[in-house]
């Protein structure tokens, strides 16, 4: 049956496996925190933000003496925003890296399957960026988030569109992904409660750049406001093509366009002028955040998007470990439910589901210089 060459190949496989296993030694005197996010594939930019934030937090905490003298260590895990890889890295974090807590997963579709594995291993997970309500709606004790929920965010956006902008004809576009579509649906729900029905509801394909047909369609329904649920990579070309076709409707989007890359993606600051977005309280306005931001800038890195969320997540996890003096899921979860943590993003506390008690979504507006400010 088997020839010699097939034996050789089999041997190769085994050697690869053994090498990989051997490469993971374990040090007991550090506390390990897994940082999971996409580092390859189309969402890699967000994984980088996570990692930068978590790494800096780790450095700062260790510089301040660690947790009871124990140093913390962050472990990078790449899930490429694929459920398959998310499950794999989750198991790896549990089994090979033996982390004591996880800050992680960006895509909700990664966080959901991975959190099952963390729960099985009695490990607490806090996501800096998964905003889909389903993440915390599954009655799992050890799942927290550092960010708001799409429904909260959508409600803020809907209020703003209807009550402040007084828009009557609202077009809604999403990117057919769990974040974008979830946000768009949440916005529509709230808008309907306020008595306005959308005039257009369409999905676009992630990774494409040409939305001209969609834009012409927006034009044909004579919308006076356009809400987009999706990421800056699509929001940029969309708003540019909107303006190029002479449509002046207000453009409103969610927290995922909060990045200088949005301006690049739009092809220049003149196109993002006037764009509204929902986002958490600006860390720059908080006293706690300023020092940290300065540290990032000193390294030549602009802490944008989820960088500070990841930073705050590591802060919250270590705070819980510090206070309970353990890495036990139950103890940590109970503590987080009952106490608040002073993070780079301000004072944070969690409700029984693991969501932030206070959703601090507010509206921002971009200006012609490519900067945004709170309204």
């Amino acid at each position, binding site marked *: 049956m088997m020839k010699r060459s097939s034996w050789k190949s089999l041997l190769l496989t085994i050697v690869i496996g053994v090498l990989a296993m051997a490469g993971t030694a374990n040090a007991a005197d550090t506390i390990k925190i897994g940082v999971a996010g996409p580092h390859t594939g189309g969402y890699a930019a967000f994984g980088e933000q996570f990692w930068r934030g978590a790494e800096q937090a780790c450095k700062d905490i260790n510089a301040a003496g660690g947790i009871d003298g124990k140093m913390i260590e962050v472990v990078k895990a790449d899930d490429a925003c694929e459920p398959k890889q998310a499950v794999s890295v989750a198991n790896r974090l549990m089994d090979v890296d033996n982390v004591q807590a996880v800050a992680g997963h960006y895509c909700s579709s990664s966080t959901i399957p991975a959190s099952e594995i963390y729960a099985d291993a009695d490990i607490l997970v806090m996501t800096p960026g998964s905003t889909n309500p389903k993440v915390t709606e599954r009655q799992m004790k050890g799942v927290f988030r550092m960010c708001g929920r799409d429904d909260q965010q959508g409600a803020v956006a809907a209020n703003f569109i209807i009550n402040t902008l007084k828009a009557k004809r609202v077009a809604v576009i999403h990117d057919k992904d769990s974040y974008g579509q979830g946000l768009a649906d949440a916005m529509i729900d709230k808008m309907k409660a306020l008595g306005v029905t959308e005039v257009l509801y369409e999905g676009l394909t992630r990774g494409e750049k040409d939305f001209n047909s969609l834009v012409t369609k927006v034009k044909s329904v004579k919308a006076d406001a356009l809400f987009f649920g999706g990421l800056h990579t699509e929001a940029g070309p969309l708003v540019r093509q909107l303006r*190029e076709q002479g449509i002046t409707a207000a453009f409103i989007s969610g927290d995922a366009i909060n990045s200088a890359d949005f301006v690049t993606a739009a092809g220049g600051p003149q196109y993002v002028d006037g764009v509204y977005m929902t986002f958490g309280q600006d860390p720059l306005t908080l006293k706690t955040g300023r020092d940290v931001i300065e540290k990032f800038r000193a390294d030549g890195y602009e802490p944008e998007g989820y960088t500070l969320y990841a930073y705050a997540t590591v802060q919250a996890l270590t705070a819980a470990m510090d206070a309970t003096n353990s890495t036990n899921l139950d103890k940590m979860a109970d503590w987080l439910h009952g106490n608040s943590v002073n993070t780079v993003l301000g004072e944070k506390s969690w409700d029984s589901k693991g969501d932030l008690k206070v959703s601090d979504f507010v509206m921002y507006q971009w200006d012609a210089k490519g900067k945004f400010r709170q309204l």
Partner: protein
Amino acid sequence: MDIYILGQQLLNGLILGSIYGLIAIGYTMVYGIIGMINFAHGDIYMISAYLTAILLSLIFSLGITSLPVVLLLTLFFAMAITGTYGWAIERVAYRPLRGSTRLAPLISAIGMSLVLQSYVQISQGARNQGVPILIKGVLRLGGEEQFVQITYIQILIVIASFIGMAALTYIILRTSLGRQCRATQQDRKMAAILGINTNRIISTVFVIGSSMAALAGVLVTLNYGSFDFYIGFVIGIKAFTAAVLGGIGSLPGAMLGGIVLGMAEGLFSGFVSSDYKDVFAFGLLVLVLVFRPSGLLGKPEIEKV
């Protein structure tokens, strides 16, 4: 139905279709000559987008501001460098596989596509990148409120794609290089016996195909203004679909396939649902192939018994 909206949607489809067509030409040429699907072609296009931004910034820093000069220099260098990419990829990943199974180069191409993507991601970062607006201006037909419009850069794209297609068709049909290409395509062994350096011809085709991707890359990047390391994948699959729709191996077919696909997508997403536009596009492809098994302009395959 609003005539302006319809007109605009047709125009949108035409522009998108021209872009597909430009990239599809590369697929179709490579397929024509060695019968392989070059999955790395979309990533060559992506590389050329990065080159556009890099070259523009270099040229501006040299103090050249005359728009035509900037444009031509960018185009020239981008095409030259991507041409080198095409040559090197063929040399490294495909040539050693010549004469083995038909599927081996296909897998090698998929591997190459991964390599190019992650190479760019590692060197340039995962972030979105962009280029400043170079060509401003728009042509509008109609009144203040109602109009059909096309920007200058979009006009340039449509013109360039047709010129590109026509020039290549001319080269293939009329020049000595073209004759050697066609000979190599029909019977590589015989062509080699007749003294044609088939390896060189195949390399040349890769270089030409890649430069066409660069032509598309430069113009499209200037049009949309932004890109990332992942753009090659989606547009690559679409362009390949266009090439097959038009009849793979046929240059005018690639253009026609691109425009049909672009129009179909544009009109469907404009008037029916943009959620299902890709379903519609692929459905159209299946339907065309069921009734015309060699695509719109492809030569029907004769079964030799």
